[in-house]
């Protein structure tokens, strides 16, 4: 019982990390809060589904194409809409929220609702960890998340684009004097965030079905985790995901499943009271606190 709870709590936390890392990365680099994040997640899932079922591409190709497509949409969204309102928080928030809403509700309007909209699992198998059954897909999620976080760390520490990301994140004006084009970096950051949402969708969606309301859930989870961890801090996302993931799973097992939402809500409000910038939100603390 306890072992099972712990194993599933870890998996739950890893899913939360996957869901929120892209949102947090975009915010950390360019300061854009992408409220269309959940919509991009669902968009990528549906486009994989359509490529798979209607065009008939093989599964890996379909998944790859839809990840690229989602990243392209992120880049276009920045280039054509967000760039015009850059720096005005109000307009950025409303514009991204409007885009997300339009995408999600358009899918609902087209009638993409039902249990038949699902993606197949990668490997249909299950393993025993101690006395706990875990299916292969969940292990793939954990493995791919570890690989992804590792690759991201290498990317931002050892490539020139990655270093430019960090430069812009630390001080945009100083970075500009070193010849980093902040608009291109911001385009790439929104696009990378969208790609991470698509990757998360590709590995997580096979656990269940694709539904439009999940788009809002993903956004809520990403926001909750990012607020608790501290906006823009990747370490914060990982710690906050573990905290929320374990808290949710343990209340689910020992108190009752309907208390899980209250736990996340209470966690957000508590963190805001005690440490307003989040657990690890040191980087932007001076700008955000008043």
């Amino acid at each position, binding site marked *: 019982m306890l072992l099972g709870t712990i194993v599933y709590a870890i998996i739950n936390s890893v899913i939360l990390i996957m869901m929120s890392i892209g949102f947090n990365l975009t915010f950390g680099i360019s300061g854009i809060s992408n409220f269309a994040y959940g919509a991009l997640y669902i968009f990528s899932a549906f486009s994989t589904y359509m490529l798979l079922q209607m065009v008939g591409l093989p599964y890996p190709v379909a998944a790859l194409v839809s990840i690229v497509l989602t990243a392209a949409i992120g880049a276009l969204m920045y280039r054509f*809409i967000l760039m015009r309102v850059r720096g005005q*928080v109000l307009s950025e928030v409303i*514009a991204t929220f409007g885009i*997300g809403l339009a995408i999600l*509700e358009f899918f609902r309007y087209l009638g993409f609702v039902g249990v038949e909209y699902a993606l197949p699992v990668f490997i249909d198998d299950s393993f025993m960890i101690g006395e706990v059954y875990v299916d292969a897909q969940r292990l793939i999620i954990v493995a791919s998340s570890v690989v992804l976080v590792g690759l991201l760390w290498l990317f931002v520490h050892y490539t020139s684009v990655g270093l430019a990301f960090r430069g812009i994140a630390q001080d945009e004006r100083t970075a500009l004097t070193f010849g980093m084009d902040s608009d291109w970096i911001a385009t790439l950051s929104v696009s990378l965030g969208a790609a991470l949402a698509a990757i998360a969708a590709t590995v997580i969606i096979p656990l269940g079905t694709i539904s439009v309301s999940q788009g*809002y859930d993903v*956004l809520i989870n990403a926001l909750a985790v990012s607020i608790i961890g501290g906006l823009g801090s990747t370490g914060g996302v990982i710690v906050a995901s573990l905290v929320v993931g374990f808290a949710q799973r343990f209340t689910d097992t020992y108190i009752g499943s309907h208390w899980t939402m209250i736990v996340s*809500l209470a966690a957000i409000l508590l963190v805001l009271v005690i440490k307003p910038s989040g657990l690890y939100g040191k980087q932007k603390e001076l700008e955000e606190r008043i």
Partner: protein
Amino acid sequence: MKKRKERIDRGIKVRSEDIFALSSWREMLYFAAPRVIPVAVFILLPLVLGDYWQRVYLSVAVFALLAISWDILSQSGMISLGQALFFGMGAYCSGVLNHYFGISPFLTIPIAAVVGGAICTVMLLPVLRLRGVYFSMVTLIIPLMLERVIEATKIFGGTEGLSGLDVLPSKWLEMYILVAAMIAALFGFRRMMTSDYGLVLTGIKDNDRSVMNAGINIYWFKIQALFIASAVGAFAGAMMTHVYRFVGMPVFALDYSILPIAAVMVGGPGSFAGAVLGAFILVPLSEALRALGGLRIVFYGVFLVVFVVGMPEGIFHFIARKYSQFERWAEVDK
């Protein structure tokens, strides 16, 4: 030859803003028309509308109140994505008071406006210490989470909600309470924002640190603005509860958050008139588009993007400019 557009205040505007307003009927009319005509329309409209469109007019007034409440917050530097929180809190307060304690709607509505507003303010207190997107994020999350909490814990009727609540004695009474509230909010808050009190709120939005430098406790002012805005939203929710005789999970739905923002964006932020104008455009439009079903929300989303990027000043400011200024092409000096 280069030209630039020059905008000059009309002479009649300059004169009628001063004591000369008393000098001629024409100037008095110029000054009074934009205020008197809308009020007359608001009051007379219910008399000429049929039953169905009276209902629509009720929801226009409710959304106008929510949009005004959004505009108060945005003018104080807080961008809410969750007007549904205020609306739903007011709706549940009055619903619970009426259903469990049998208090009459004449008491539950004012109590719900105050208590609901206070609860929302307390819930959002922790976010006030941060600037930027935090307020938007938390206001977006809380109503969606409260919906889940009600669904899961089955308090206050759970998914079924509370139905069969008391209704106000006559439909004219509920109509005119809402219309009066809308007019009072529109003109009252316009006046508030031009007073010194409003100046502090706008100052907090523009530069909070310099307001602090002036020795003003900005948290206290933000709390007051938040309470005013959430009380207005809660009042709208409480009224709607007694009109529909029902309160349930849909009061926290995303519609109540999106439509007010869309209304302000279309009408024009920063002047409550824009919020009301936006509600008068969008709510009947969405009734007319009812056949499209879910596509309506897609339209709201597109409206938001188009107006934020393409016409950030909104319709009201455009009209106001045409009314008070004329434009001409002038040569650029060499």
